[in-house]
């Protein structure tokens, strides 16, 4: 009964100054939406590393991506024990002649083995057959096809950005990916078609060899075996699991991620200051009341309960509102804009439900922490002084 009374008192306390309550909640909601936004940006970077596969290895030149690997390396890798399948690819990078402003990550691949190694690529059986058959056929990622307005059967002319040349292709299929990790923004076409157009010195070279090992545990050993095999050759290699590659890429932007982390802590600190200030004001105004309650026999812990209860309510209300607002604002508003305008930098921008749960908990925690000092002050101040005060 008493606990209920105290809870009711706590809620009443909040409602006493409606204007201040509204402002405080508003400030906290703004801060929490910003917090969700910042966390989502960090998540957007980590999602690839999280979902990257550990049993797929990529092999490239040891020190420079500018130097391609000889074609014969592919068969050498295929012959190693522990390798289930291997394929290769060369990044052409391109722009379509009728879309000169959109970068198209065009990848020249060996179709059959590529689809075997990258089994998350989902494509209908007939599209697959059509693509395998047509040397000048292309398989386009769903998102990319949408962006360029491409459909099956259409012709497209690519101008290479990393490799000199022009290729006329026919779209034979649209693919999607089974995992969220892949950006799904590539255009795939036959490596054999690319190879014909290369100069003699560039011919029969590939940028990467990809191999699939029998299990994630074998990945490290197989990777080392591949590099050992080519160590003494003209072109030494560096083999990493897909996950390791993604983590290395993350290290490149680690300072951005760190600053976003710092900023998200700063925003919590700001909201804590605002909340703490509001609660402290309320406590200061009610010194006489609290003294009266204590004179009536309420214990210190009851006062603490009152003040912390108030803070808890603040935290919960602000947290709930913040979470409710941040989904539409962050994911539907900013997320869509970012994906459309900067898809190459932040390709996957979604609010993680865990972030929302964490935000609600953090809001409550921040409220409680902010109430700490005022609560201690209220408990410590002598009853008689509070009663004596006129105000």
């Amino acid at each position, binding site marked *: 009964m008493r606990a209920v009374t105290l809870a009711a008192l706590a809620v009443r306390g909040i409602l006493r100054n409606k204007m201040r309550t509204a402002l*405080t909640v508003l400030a906290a909601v703004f*801060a929490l939406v910003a917090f969700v936004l910042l966390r989502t940006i960090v998540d957007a970077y980590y999602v690839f590393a999280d979902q990257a596969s550990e049993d797929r290895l990529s092999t490239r030149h*040891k*020190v420079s991506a500018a130097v391609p690997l000889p074609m014969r390396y592919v068969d050498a890798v295929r012959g190693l024990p522990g390798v289930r399948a291997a394929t290769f690819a060369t990044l052409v990078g391109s722009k379509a002649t009728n879309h000169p402003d959109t970068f198209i990550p065009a990848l020249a691949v060996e179709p059959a083995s590529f689809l075997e190694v990258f089994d998350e690529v989902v494509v209908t059986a007939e599209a697959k057959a059509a693509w395998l058959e047509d040397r000048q056929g292309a398989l386009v990622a769903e998102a990319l096809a949408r962006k360029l307005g491409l459909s099956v059967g259409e012709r497209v002319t690519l101008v290479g950005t990393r490799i000199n040349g022009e290729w006329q292709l026919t779209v034979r299929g649209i693919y999607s990916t089974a995992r969220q990790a892949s950006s799904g923004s590539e255009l795939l076409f036959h490596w054999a078609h690319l190879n014909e157009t290369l100069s003699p010195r560039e011919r029969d070279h590939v940028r990467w060899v990809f191999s699939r090992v029998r299990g994630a545990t074998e990945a490290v050993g197989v990777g080392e075996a591949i590099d050992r095999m080519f160590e003494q050759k003209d072109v030494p290699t560096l083999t990493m699991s897909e996950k390791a590659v993604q983590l290395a890429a993350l290290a490149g932007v680690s300072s951005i991620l760190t600053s976003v982390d710092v900023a998200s802590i700063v925003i919590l600190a700001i*909201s804590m200051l605002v909340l703490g200030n509001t609660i402290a004001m309320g406590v200061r105004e009610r010194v006489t009341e609290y003294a009266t309650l204590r004179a009536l026999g309420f214990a210190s812990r009851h006062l603490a309960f009152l003040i912390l209860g108030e803070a808890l309510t603040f935290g919960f209300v602000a947290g709930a509102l913040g979470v409710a607002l941040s989904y539409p604002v962050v994911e539907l508003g900013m997320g869509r804009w970012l994906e459309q305008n900067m898809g190459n930098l932040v390709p996957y921008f979604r609010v993680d439900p865990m972030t929302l749960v964490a935000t609600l908990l953090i809001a409550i925690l921040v409220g409680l922490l902010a109430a700490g000092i005022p609560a201690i002050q209220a408990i410590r101040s002598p009853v008689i002084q509070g009663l004596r005060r006129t105000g």
Partner: protein
Amino acid sequence: MVPVSYNLRSLAVRRTTTAATALGIALVVFVFASVLMFSRGLTRTLGRSARPDLAVVLRKGADAEGRSSFDETNIPIIVNAAGVARDAHGEANPLRAVVVGLRLPKVGTAGLSSLQVRGVGDLNQMSLRIVAGRAPAAGTDEALVGAAIRGRFRGTDLDQAIEFPKGRRVRVVGVFEDGGSAFESEVWTDLDVLRSSFGLEGQVSSVRVRLTSATAFEGYKNAIEQNRQLGVEVFREPDYFDRQSGGMNLLIRAMALIISFFFSVGAMIGATITMNASIAQRQREIGTLRALGFSRGAVLFSFLLESVTLALVGGLLGASAAISMRFVKFSMLNMVSGAEIVFAFEPTPEVLGTAFGAAAVMGLVGGFFPALRASLIRPLEAIRG
């Protein structure tokens, strides 16, 4: 006008509340100033040393020097077009460069990162300032390292050696500066040493050509790009640097803007709450002020001043903290070239002034409604309590 000391004392009396609000504003100003400083650093690094009369020739479609390569045999055609500046001997002196990414272990981390290495035909043609060591001798396995990445990768400090492909080791004999530009994040070495080590004999990534004037550019560009056999594209150096930052610059600015907006709204509301409470407690005082003959306008002004002062205290705190960001070096992977670039935060007087101004605006906006409320207090009712 209500004496300023009245407001200052009011702030001093409510020490805790004042401090909490000012601290909130200080944090916002700190973040805001850091973002501005970073943006300045970014602009400086990616565009500072660019010269509008310098044309950069790349392979058609390549978006960065590190991704470009074309046959050296094309260079005579490139320099013989109209608009190219010539020296007293009638020579055009084009600067040939090969740019490659080199993966090296990064000092202090377990991982590898990409370092941009530039081989140039003639080092003397670039006006670099050597700040330690000496210039490399032409045609030898010697290199200069940019001040920004000195010691950040294995082998990149003075008197160390960088491992190139084919087992070549290139000695670092000097450290250079170039006004904070992106070149300071590179290693510079001899063109032929780099080409033979990477198997790029006979190729160049870019050619820089000095034109007679910046206005000669359009004509030169058209003349060169019309020749489809060449397969090259021509950029003004400043435009080329602009492209280098790609969407990164825009993304960082957009993010910064969004963050600053949310943060400042939070702090502004904090200021409103504080001023509101402070005014509610001072009903009687304000009533007395009005009864003494101070006009509504004077009261409004007085409280706005109080709020702005409160914000400026925070602004001062935040701006001073932001100055210390000068010592932070920010390294990042350039999304276009794939190599690492080091940026610095640049605390210029304008940046600090802007941040300080933003604090004043927060105080003004945050304090406006409370001050308006104060000015509308009726003296008689307030004094009666």
